[in-house]
């Protein structure tokens, strides 16, 4: 199945993906309502996008009490059938990756649907940090990178680098 593969080391934090994702859904730029999100690591110098893995277990789909989430026959994406959605939020709490949401404006569940086969975030990403490729199974694209890119940060935390009393003495 073709799905989004994230290459976190290439992300520059430009937010084009969120800008464009929110735009193609609503006609306005509202990144807080994009269904792809970007998180910063280190302290504000590394970034990675993340969104629905289109996972095999499709937790959201199985959770929906009225079957308002299904598999798109063309893309195999797990998609919300918006008119049937109640907005109960069950999908939001059951997805163990935190990538489906209820939009507070229209009270409908919303998630990445791969833009019906031509994902906008992929088109816009200037560095290729998001790819639309054939993969056997989705993977934890961000996991090992996030682990590496937080080690120095955790070490610095542990060393007290962010502790004001210690920091002032340490600056040469």
């Amino acid at each position: 199945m073709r799905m989004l593969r994230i290459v976190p080391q290439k992300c520059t934090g430009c937010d084009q993906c969120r800008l464009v994702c929110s735009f193609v859904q609503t006609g306005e730029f509202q990144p807080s309502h994009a269904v792809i999100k970007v998180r910063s690591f280190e302290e504000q110098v590394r970034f990675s996008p993340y969104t629905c893995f289109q996972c095999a277990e499709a937790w959201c789909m199985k959770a929906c009490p009225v079957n308002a989430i299904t598999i798109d026959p063309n893309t195999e994406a797990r998609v919300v059938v918006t008119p049937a959605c109640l907005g109960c939020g069950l999908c939001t709490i059951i997805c163990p990756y935190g990538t489906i949401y209820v939009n507070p404006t229209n009270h409908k569940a919303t998630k990445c649907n791969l833009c019906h086969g031509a994902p906008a975030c992929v088109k816009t990403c200037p560095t290729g940090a998001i790819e639309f490729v054939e993969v056997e199974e989705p993977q934890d694209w961000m996991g090992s990178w996030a682990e590496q890119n937080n080690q120095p940060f955790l070490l610095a935390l542990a060393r007290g680098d962010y502790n004001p009393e210690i920091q002032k003495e340490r600056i040469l």
Partner: protein
Amino acid sequence: MSNLRYLIIGGGPAGLNALETIHQLDPTPATLTLVSDEPPYARMALPYVLTGQIPAEQAFTGDAAYFQSLGVTTVFGRRAVKLDLAAHRVSLDDGQVLPYDRLLLATGSKPTRPPISGLDLPGVTTLWTLDDSRYLLRMPGERPHVLFIGAGFIGIIVLSALFKRGWQLSVVELQDRLLPTMLDRSAGAIVERWLSRKGISTRTHIGVQSIIQRSSGRKQALLSNGEALEVDLAVVATGVQPNRQLAVQAGLACDRGILVNEFLRTSDPEVYAAGDVAQGPDLLGGAPASHAIQPTAVDHGRVAGANMAGRRTRYAGSLLINTLDIAGLQCAGYGRSNTAQGDMTTAIGDDGWSLRKYVWEGDRLVGVTLLGSPEEILFDADLGMLKGLVQSQVRLGAWRDYLAKNPWDIRRVFAASRTAGKLLPETLLGRPAQPRAYRFQGIQPQTAPGPAYQHFAAAQGQGPESFPSVIEMLEGSKSQ
């Protein structure tokens, strides 16, 4: 083609998911029969019927064509009254006797009846069934005053639905806090403060002793503190109990519910149980648990169905998860969220309403409570990630302290914990999940993006619109 006669008692999500799973694995059995005292509908949709958001018809989870496509013989409007384990038969209330090779008891639960006199008066009702919803919707008057007896999960959901209709509302709860199975006292206090701000009166640690009917037709509820409340309607929401009568009479092993093992099988090898009526493995370990929530019913049904159809499938256990709107304040809980003591961190947000509570066992997350605006909880807050952390029981190491000190920064912790990597390969049934076949009015998903997308994509040209990431240069010349 199998010779098996499958019999499912109960048309809720447990029963229907079992049905579909059996059909997928054994498409041409001898018989596949579903008995349900009501035509199957989603109880979770009822609050939306109450608010008027959807018509009652939209709550149904199947129609004749759907059941026919699954090869199901339906027996609706009938109740099972006797189970004969030795003879492999179930008797219905109209005298029908249905034989089985594999039986699933998915009889669900029903509201408890507290020891209050006056529960049978007109205008005193539970809110459990579609008929109950229709009853409530026929309430006369512009703004009836409704008393909620019990502030559990169901009660508060219904209360929020009626709040949207603008009705006058009061709540009386016997325990020392609202939503006692989800919240501890500090979270409960925030909810009380919120409801009070919304004009909803709440009383905790107080019970209703009796209800009488006044000549005006209104009800008067006498409270344990001596107060008398005059209302138009009382909704009894003191919890639910499993419909386990059939199992008890037949001699199956029961606790509060029908006990099932990791294959969702009861003490009888041909009888399975699933959903609210069953008491099975708890994902967080410990004694068998009764998690009377939709997702558990779904997964129970799927696993039971798979095992019934001969595909041996082990169930790791259910996790208690809940979310509800409380008159505009969103609440969510996972696992052991209502713990009063132990290793916990609670943070209250700068607005006075947001709350994050994390319950730890060593460096593992075992319980979560969240309160906040609907936008925050359902959109911003990476709610599902917390469920992922609890579900995977991943050891967080140094990130445990980080999350305790930075309770709003979940993404970093989730990513670094590599939880996604642990969970992605897991499926409940050892294969990709399938969508259900029935949807109200057969509504299909959109097939093409909207006009905004067209504007965005139309102008994209042929030539290069970006250059390669510097990472390619860095990775190409890796020296370290």
